[in-house]
């Protein structure tokens, strides 16, 4: 893994068209700004992984477990 040290308002450039800017550092939290073309999807990793897991899990449902329509 490439490791770089940056200060607030400095940035890194990935390839020709992705830029990641350090916006703010406060305690354990870092705010990043990301400039990327629209076809580059940017996600928080844990959200991305959990949605991937849910997608797989929804493909393993046994049809006999599906409830009848149930309006609350």
């Amino acid at each position: 893994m490439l490791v770089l040290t940056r200060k607030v308002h400095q940035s890194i450039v990935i390839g020709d068209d992705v830029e990641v800017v350090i916006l703010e550092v406060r305690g354990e939290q870092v705010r990043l700004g990301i400039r990327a073309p629209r076809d580059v999807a940017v996600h928080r990793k844990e959200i991305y992984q959990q949605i991937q897991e849910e997608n797989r899990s929804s493909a393993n449902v046994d049809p006999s477990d599906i409830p009848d329509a149930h309006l609350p």
Partner: protein
Amino acid sequence: MTLSTRFGMVEYNEEDILTFPQGLLGLPALKRFLILEHKPGSPFRWLQSLDEPSMSLLVCDPWAYVADYDPQLRPTDETDLALTDSEARMILATASIPPGKPEGMTLNLLGPLVINLSKRIGKQIALDGGTYTIRHRVFQRSRPAVAA
């Protein structure tokens, strides 16, 4: 055309195909789908992959269980889907059910599937903000928990 699925052979036409140009989140190779009925009148459907016929995702009309669901699309999502106010759109949530425990069903309200029905294109989006969760339990009378 016919496709062999986990439910048996399915007949379909070219115009039935839905295309997700970016694939599903975490499953980028799954780009082309059919929507299959579960039972007439049911809010559940199967999002049947054409690229990997063994993959049939259970999806649900989220409003059947969460009447006040209000996903806010970003302008870029609407552009990707060529959605204008007049285009017919459909929003579905994937549903997971632990084996033998329908009462444990959850809907992914954070990562809905948005479909432009007239152009037959779709996109799975991850919503901003902390309003909705990835595993929203439908059979309990609490509000959606706040996501981290």
